[in-house]
């Protein structure tokens, strides 16, 4: 089959573009980034009946070709052919929400004025009918001068007709690229009036029956029941992240343990075997083990987005966010950051105000990401007694809750301080469309989860893979001479670097082995656990949980309680994740902000750990 042509799906936010993209391409899609920006590029293949296999891209939703945020800029640039790494589309599929015709037609008219081959997908006609609207697609097609195909992407209705229309409109392979002559540019008011006129002509009948969304909003957006529902949802999500993940986490641990045993059985005792077993499998396995938790959190995030609830959450949170100088839109990236700060930082691209966006990026690493969990779990299990306090609440769980809370409170305080200093500027705005509620389609959620899983595993297979090998080499070489009373770890390159750091960390209660663990943990926080394990010279056990327990018991004997608490406080703030720093560099397009972020978070980590240690020591703990 030939690969010919590029089609761009373009339209307003909430027009159902992504659902249409999923319906047209199925699982045949590739998610990446546009070069130089962290705006996600979703591309796929569309097989036409004449044997052509055209590329199709799903562009970020926007209201006009005059962008307000980075993702809207990408849409404008792709449509005009200015975007690096993307050819100008051969045709546009303009997606409009049938129930919001006059508003969406304004942007459609702006796109049609470019004079490029186009087809209009009149999407979500079922919801328009639910809202009492009957539309005449033929009349609309006559007025717009291009084919208009009624579709219901989530029910796969109208897709064959849309494919036929695309086939007829997309230039044939080998045909020279046409020079498109844009129509005369029209003013904003003229476009709006024209859109309203065309929409009125296309509406056959209109009955005001918008009960469904309104009825839910009455409860969900109510000043009293709204926040209660939001808090209850967040509670359920975080409970599920921990309780649902237990079985798959155990399965992954067992798989990696079996892999280690298998390699040990096959390879002779050698440098290569040690590197594979202790470095690669243990290192990559310690990261992949978080995949279930990340997927559970993303499952809820995707569901909340697909139903239309996420924007309601932003609406409810705007008041609180405004008090710390942010917008309700910041709630969505910050919620994502509980899974991982990287997608959280990427999600800030929808925030239009640059200062709002920068502040959200700078505080996103303070949300307790899942990489902190192994560190918290190890130290809490080893140092916090497993007993109930205050009416049956578990002390260990309470400490974990306090660590999450410390991250949130720290982020809010940091936002206030940043907005008064380095990101000072006018108070940002909050303008947002609240889409209609929809039943999410399981297939779309699964595709979304698969994409997130793939991105995470690819990262584990590259960055973490390389880091763990380097860590293993630094911890293993050079080897101490015969008769030396220094341990292998202390004599190693990593041990020597730790000795340099130790004087800075000693005042906050950290010892040599913590200094040693913090170096590799710069790559990813969870590496601190495996680094501590190696530093303690524990024989790798087949059962990772047993290893963790053994490590915990060892730490109990070597650390004081104030040191352990200080270590926990350190990880609430410490920016120990190279991927987060790298994505911040890419998102802010300079080294200035990632370096600033790393600096202020390390200072906070040192102060928090110090304050915890000094308070605990003076309290006689």
């Amino acid at each position: 089959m030939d690969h010919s042509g590029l089609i761009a799906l373009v339209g307003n936010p909430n027009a159902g573009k992504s659902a249409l993209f999923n319906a047209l391409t199925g699982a045949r899609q590739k998610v990446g980034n546009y070069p130089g920006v962290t705006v996600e590029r979703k591309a796929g293949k569309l097989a036409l009946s004449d044997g052509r296999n055209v590329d199709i891209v799903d562009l970020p939703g926007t209201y006009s070709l005059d962008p307000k945020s980075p993702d809207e800029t990408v849409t404008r640039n792709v449509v005009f052919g200015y975007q690096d790494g993307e050819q100008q589309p051969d045709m546009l599929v303009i997606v409009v929400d049938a129930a919001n015709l006059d508003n969406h037609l304004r942007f459609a008219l702006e796109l049609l004025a470019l004079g490029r081959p186009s087809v209009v997908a009149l999407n979500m006609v079922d919801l328009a009918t639910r809202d009492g609207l009957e539309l005449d697609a033929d009349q609309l097609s006559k007025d717009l001068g291009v084919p208009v195909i009624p579709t219901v992407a989530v029910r796969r209705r109208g897709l064959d007709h849309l494919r036929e229309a695309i086939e007829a409109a997309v230039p044939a392979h080998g045909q020279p690229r046409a020079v498109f002559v844009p129509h005369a540019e029209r003013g904003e008011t003229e476009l709006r009036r024209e859109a309203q006129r065309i929409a009125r002509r296309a509406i056959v009948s209109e009955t005001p029956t918008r009960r469904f969304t309104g009825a839910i909003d009455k409860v969900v957006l109510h000043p009293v029941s709204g926040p209660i529902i939001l808090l209850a949802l967040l509670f359920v999500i975080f409970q599920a992240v921990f309780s649902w993940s237990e079985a798959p986490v155990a399965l992954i641990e067992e798989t990696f343990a079996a892999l280690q045993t298998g390699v040990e059985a096959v390879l002779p005792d050698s440098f290569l075997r040690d590197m594979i077993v202790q470095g690669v499998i243990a290192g990559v396995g310690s990261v992949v083990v978080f995949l279930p938790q990340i997927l559970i959190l993303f499952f809820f995030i995707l569901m909340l987005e697909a139903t239309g609830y996420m924007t309601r959450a932003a609406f409810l949170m705007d008041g609180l966010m405004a008090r710390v100088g942010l917008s309700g839109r910041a709630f969505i990236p910050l919620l994502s950051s509980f899974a991982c700060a990287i997608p959280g930082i990427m999600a800030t691209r929808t925030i239009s105000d640059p200062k709002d966006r920068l502040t959200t990026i700078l505080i996103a690493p303070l949300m307790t990401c899942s990489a902190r969990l192994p560190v918290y779990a190890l130290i809490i299990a080893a140092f916090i007694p497993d007993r109930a306090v205050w009416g049956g609440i578990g002390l260990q769980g309470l400490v974990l809750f306090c660590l999450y809370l410390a991250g949130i409170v720290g982020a809010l305080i940091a936002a206030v301080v940043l907005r008064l200093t380095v990101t000072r500027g006018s108070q940002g705005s909050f303008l947002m469309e609240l889409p209609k509620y929809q039943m999410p389609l399981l297939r779309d959620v699964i595709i979304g989860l698969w994409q997130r899983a793939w991105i995470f595993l690819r990262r584990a297979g590259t960055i973490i893979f390389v880091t763990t090998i380097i860590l293993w080499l630094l911890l293993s070489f050079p080897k101490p001479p015969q008769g030396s009373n220094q341990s292998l770890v202390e004599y190693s390159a990593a041990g020597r670097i730790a000795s340099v750091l130790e004087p800075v960390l000693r005042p906050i209660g950290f010892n040599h082995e913590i200094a040693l663990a913090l170096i590799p943990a710069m790559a990813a926080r969870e590496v601190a656990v495996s680094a501590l394990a190696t530093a303690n010279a524990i024989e790798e056990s087949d059962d990772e949980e047993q290893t963790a327990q053994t490590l915990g018991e060892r730490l109990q004997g070597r650390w004081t309680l104030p040191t352990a608490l200080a270590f926990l406080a350190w990880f609430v703030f410490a920016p120990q994740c190279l991927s987060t720093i790298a994505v911040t560099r890419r998102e802010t397009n300079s080294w200035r902000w990632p370096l600033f972020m790393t600096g202020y978070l390390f200072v906070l980590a040192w102060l928090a750990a110090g304050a915890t240690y000094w308070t605990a020591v003076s309290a006689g703990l």
Partner: protein
Amino acid sequence: MLLTALAPNQPAYIDRVDWAAMSDSDGKRLRELGLCEGASIELLHRAGLLGWLLSRLGIRRRGAHACRVGRMIVAMRATHAAAIEVRTGADDEAGAA
């Protein structure tokens, strides 16, 4: 009257928007969302528990407003809502009298 003073679920029309009270880009986005002179508008919800409690005590609230504009629901802050003057059926009748 200002949109901030409009009672919930009372149909109205946008009479005038003080575009100078907001940034150019916010003004443009409001127009892209359909908020312009002559458009039908209805206040649906005001967010904020604290604001709701204060409003019970007769103190003006500042939380986000959700409005139906045409067939779309748009959320905006009180600062933007305060720049929008609306006219209800009752205003028209009073004007005619």
